[in-house]
C-alpha cells in the first residue's frame, strides 16, 4: 500500500518512453539506419548529389568555396563509405586531382600565361619560337598573378574530379548499372565484367613477377614487366572464355519468343528515334533550324526510349531486389541539386565573389550565403544509411573459431605422451580439434534427419 502512489508514475514513465511520437521515438526514426541491402541508398542518388557538387564547382573559381566543396565531399565520403574495394578509389581520385593541379602549375610556370601581372617572381630565358607558333610562349616572365590564375583554374578541375571520385566511392558501380533498362542489360554486364577483370589482371602480373624472381631473374624494370605481358594476356583470354562458358551455363542470353511484328516495331522505333536525335542535334547546332530542332530532338529521344522499352520484352530476365528510391534518396539527391542551383543563382548575385580576379593580387573573399549553400551538401553525412564498420568485412580471412587457442594445451598435453595418442578415445582432443581447420560458419546437424527442415523442398520445381 505504501508503494501505491508511486505506481502510476512508473507506469506513466515507461509508457511515455515507448509511445511513438515522443522525443525518443522521433529521433530513433530519423536516425540513419545501418546500410545493408535493404536500406542502402540508391546509387543514382549518390551520383546526383556528386554531380550537383560538381556543377557547383564548375560555377566558381573562388578557392575558398572550392576548398569548402572538397571538404564537404571528403567529409561525406569519410562518414558514409563502405569497406568495399570500389570505395578505395577515392584516394586515387584525390591523387589524380593533385596531379592535375601540379601539371597545370608546371605548364603555367614554363609556358607563361596571358594574364598581365606586375609581380614578377622569376624571369626564365625565353625560347624564340617561329611565326607559326604565334601565341605560344616558352619561358619568359613568371608572374604571381599568372600563377594564381592557373591555380584557381586547376583547383576547379581538381574539385570536379574529386566530386566524381566521391560518387565512385559511395555508390557501387555494379548496382548502378543494374538500374539500366532491360534492353541495355548486356552493355551493363560487359562493363561489370570488365571492372572485375582489372583486379584479376593486376593479381596476375604480381604472381608472374613473383615467379620470375623465383627463377632467379630480375623482377623489377621495364623488361621484367614486358616479359610477363604475354602470359598475363593469355591468362586473361583464358579467363574470359571460362567466364563466357560459366555465364552461358547459368542461362545468360536466354531470350523469349517474340513475334516478328514486335521485333520489327522495336527496330523501327529505335532506328527512327536515333535518326530523329541526330537530325535534331544537327538542327540545333546549325545556325538555321533552331525552331524545329528542339521538338525533333525530343521526339527522337522519346521514340528511341519507346524502342528500348519494347526491346526489353525480348529478354526474359527479371531483377533481383531492384534499387529502391526512397525518402533518403530524395533528400540526398535534393541536397546536391540544391547546392548546384544555389551556386548558379549566386553566379548572378555575387559574380565577383565567385570569380575573384587574379589581377590585382588580393585575398579572395568568402561570400557568406554561397558558402552556406555549399554546406547543404553535408546533408548525406547525416541522412544516408551508415556503413557498418566491422573488422571482419575488411579482412579477407574468415573469423577463427575460439577453439584454436585451446588446441595448443590439448595438443601439447597429448603429444607428449609416448606411443602416440588415440583420437577416438580422447574426448578432449576429439571434441576440440575438428573445429580448428576451416573458419567461418559451419553447418551443424548435418546428417541428422529432421534437424534442418527442408525449406528448399517446399517449392514446386520449375
Amino acid at each position: 500500500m505504501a508503494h501505491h502512489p508511486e505506481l502510476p508514475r512508473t507506469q506513466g514513465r515507461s509508457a511515455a518512453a515507448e509511445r511513438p511520437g515522443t522525443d525518443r521515438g522521433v529521433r530513433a526514426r530519423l536516425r540513419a539506419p545501418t546500410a545493408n541491402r535493404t536500406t542502402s541508398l540508391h546509387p543514382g542518388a549518390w551520383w546526383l548529389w556528386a554531380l550537383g557538387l560538381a556543377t557547383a564547382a564548375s560555377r566558381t573559381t573562388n578557392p575558398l568555396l572550392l576548398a569548402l566543396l572538397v571538404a564537404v565531399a571528403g567529409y561525406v565520403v569519410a562518414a558514409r563509405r563502405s569497406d568495399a574495394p570500389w570505395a578505395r578509389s577515392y584516394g586515387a581520385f584525390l591523387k589524380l586531382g593533385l596531379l592535375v593541379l601540379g601539371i597545370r602549375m608546371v605548364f603555367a610556370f614554363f609556358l607563361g600565361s596571358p594574364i598581365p601581372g606586375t609581380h614578377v617572381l622569376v624571369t626564365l630565358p625565353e625560347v624564340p619560337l617561329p611565326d607559326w607558333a604565334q601565341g605560344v610562349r616558352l619561358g619568359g616572365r613568371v608572374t604571381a598573378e599568372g600563377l594564381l590564375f592557373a591555380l584557381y583554374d586547376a583547383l576547379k578541375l581538381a574539385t570536379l574530379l574529386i566530386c566524381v571520385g566521391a560518387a565512385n566511392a559511395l555508390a557501387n558501380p555494379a548496382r548502378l548499372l543494374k538500374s539500366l533498362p532491360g534492353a541495355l542489360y548486356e552493355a551493363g554486364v560487359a562493363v561489370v565484367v570488365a571492372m572485375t577483370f582489372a583486379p584479376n589482371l593486376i593479381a596476375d602480373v604480381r604472381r608472374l613477377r613473383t615467379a620470375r624472381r623465383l627463377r632467379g631473374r630480375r623482377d623489377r624494370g621495364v623488361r621484367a614487366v614486358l616479359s610477363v605481358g604475354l602470359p598475363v594476356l593469355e591468362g586473361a583470354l583464358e579467363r574470359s572464355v571460362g567466364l563466357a562458358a560459366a555465364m552461358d551455363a547459368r542461362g545468360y542470353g536466354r531470350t523469349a519468343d517474340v513475334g516478328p511484328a514486335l521485333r520489327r516495331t522495336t527496330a523501327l522505333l529505335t532506328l527512327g528515334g536515333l535518326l530523329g536525335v541526330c537530325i535534331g542535334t544537327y538542327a540545333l547546332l546549325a545556325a538555321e533550324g533552331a525552331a524545329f530542332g528542339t521538338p525533333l530532338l525530343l521526339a527522337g529521344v522519346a521514340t528511341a526510349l519507346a524502342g528500348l522499352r519494347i526491346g526489353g520484352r525480348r529478354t526474359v530476365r527479371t531483377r533481383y531486389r531492384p534499387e529502391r528510391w526512397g525518402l533518403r534518396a530524395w533528400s540526398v539527391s535534393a541536397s546536391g541539386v540544391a547546392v548546384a542551383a544555389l551556386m548558379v543563382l549566386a553566379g548572378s548575385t555575387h559574380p565577383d565573389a565567385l570569380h575573384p580576379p587574379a589581377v590585382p593580387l588580393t585575398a579572395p573573399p568568402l561570400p557568406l550565403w554561397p558558402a552556406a549553400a555549399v554546406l547543404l551538401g553535408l546533408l548525406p553525412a547525416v541522412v544516408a544509411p551508415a556503413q557498418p564498420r566491422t573488422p571482419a568485412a575488411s579482412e579477407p580471412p574468415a573469423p577463427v573459431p575460439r577453439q584454436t587457442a585451446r588446441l595448443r594445451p590439448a595438443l601439447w598435453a597429448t603429444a607428449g605422451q609416448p606411443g602416440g595418442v588415440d583420437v577416438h578415445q580422447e574426448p578432449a582432443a576429439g571434441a576440440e580439434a575438428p573445429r580448428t581447420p576451416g573458419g567461418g560458419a559451419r553447418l551443424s546437424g548435418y546428417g541428422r534427419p529432421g534437424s534442418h527442415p527442408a525449406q528448399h523442398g517446399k517449392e514446386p520445381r520449375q
Partner: protein
Amino acid sequence: MIRFEQLSVTYEGSAEPALHGVDLTVPEGELCLLVGPSGVGKSTLLGTVSGLVPHFTGGTLTGRVTVAGRDTRTHRPRELADIVGSVGQDPLAHFVTDTVEDELAYGMESLGLPPGTMRRRVEETLDLLGLNELRDRPIATLSGGQRQRVAIGSVLTPHPRLLVLDEPTSALDPGAAEEVLAVLQRLVHDLGTTVLLAEHRLERVVQYADRVLLLPGRGRRARLAEPAEAMADSPVRPPVVELGALAGWTPLPLSVRDARRAAGPLRERLAVRAPRETEVPGTRETAGATEGVSLRYGSVEALHRLDFTVRRGEAVALMGRNGAGKSSLLGTLVGLHAPTRGTVSVGGGAPHRTPPAKLLRRVGLVPQEPRDLLCADTVAAECTAADADAGAAPGSCRALVTRLLPEVPDGTHPRDLSEGQRLALALAVVLTARPPLLLLDEPTRGLDYAAKARLVAVLRELTAEGHALVLATHDVELAAEVAHRVVIVAQGEIVADGATAEVVTSSPSFAPQVAKVLAPRPWLTVPQVRAALADAP
C-alpha cells in the same frame, strides 16, 4: 536422369578421342562420383552433361547425351540452365557479379523467375549453405571454402535437378572440404538433387557416394557400379580402400568406420610390431630459420612472431586452414616478402636482401600454380632457360626432367602437360640450381594417386640426398607419407610442432585414414603396414 548413349568426344587436333564409347544411365537422386586417373576425360564427361562440350570447347561429339529428356546436341548450355547447375574447377572463373547475394540471384535473374520467388530462394540458400553473414561481402574478399560454397549456392538457387561439380574440394583444407561435402549430402538427402562430381581426393568423398562412375582409361569401358565394387578394380583408390585390399577384407571398406569394424584382426597382427621408424635427422645443419618473424599486409597480420627452423635432410609439412599463413611463411623464406619484424636466415643470409640470381642456389619454391614458373614454349627450351638461370652445366635440367618425366618428349608445350607432369617440370626447373632448401606450396592439388606416389618417391630421394623440404599442404596423406615433422599454423602462429606421428594422430582433421583405422597404434600409411606385414613370418 542422365543418359549417355555411345558417347565419344574427339577434340580438334588430337588423334585419339578424349572419351570413347560411354554408354550408361545415371539414375535420379543419387550422388554419383566420377573416378578415374588424370587425363582420362573426367572433365570432358562433366562438360558434355552441362552442354559446354561441344558447344563451347569445340570438338566432335558422337552418340547422344540426354539430361532430363533434353538432348545436349540440340540444347545449348543456356537452355539447360534450369535443370543443370555446374561449377568448374576454379570457382573464381564462375562469378559474374561482385557480391555474394547478387551472385546467388544471377542465375534466377537469367531464367526470369518472379522477384518474390528469387528473394525467398536466396534467403533459403543463404541458410542452407551457412552464408548469411557473408551476404553483403564482395566476393573478392572471401576465402577458398567460402568461394566454393558461394559457387555451389549460385547454381542451386534456380533449383536444378542435377548438379555437376568438378573437383569441388581439391583446393580446400580438410575442414572447408567437410563443409562443402556436408552441403552436397544435404542436397541429395533432403532435396533429391542428383549430384555428379569428379574428385581426385577420393578419401574425402567416396564414402558419401551412392554410385561410382568409373572411367578406367586405357581402352577399358566406362561403367557405373556400387562404390565398393567399383573400388575393387579402380586404378585409383583412397588409402582406406588400399588398406582393405591389403588386408583382404570383403566387401572393401569405403569409410574409416567400415574399416575399423573389420580391422580387429589386423590390429592384433600389427600389435607386436611398431612402424619402421623414419629416420629423424639428428644434428644436421640448419637450412632455413625464422626468428620472431611478423608479416603484415595492410591491417592483416599474416605471420605473428613466428619461430621456425628446418634442417637439412628433413621434410616438414606446414598445415592449417586456408589463409592461416602457410604461403606467407614460404614467401618469407624465399624472400618474396620482407618481414615486418624479426629475422629470416636462409643459407646464411636474409633472403629478401639477397639478389634473386644468388638466392636461387640457396632456396627454391614451387608455387601453387606450377604453370606460373614455366615461361618457354617447349620443354626443351624450358630446360635450357633453367640451366642459364641457375648457371648450371647445360643439360642438367634436362637430366632431371628425364628422371622425373621419362615419357615426355622435348617438343611438348608445357601447357599441354597434365597437372602432375607440369608439377614435375617445375620441380626440375627449381632443382636445377640444387638449392639445399626446397619449398612446395600445395604440391598435390589436381594430382591423382599414381602421380602422388611418384611425387612422394621423388621427395623421399631429395631428403635422402640432404635437401631440406617444407611442404605447405592440406593433404594429410601426403604429410603422413613424406614429412618427418608436422607444423600446424593458425592465424600466423605455430599452434603445434612435433613428429608427424604425434601431431597428426592427435587431431582427427589432420589424421590420415590409416591412422584413424589403426588407432591407437601410430600407423600412418599403407606402405608402412605393407612393409610390416611383409616382414611378418
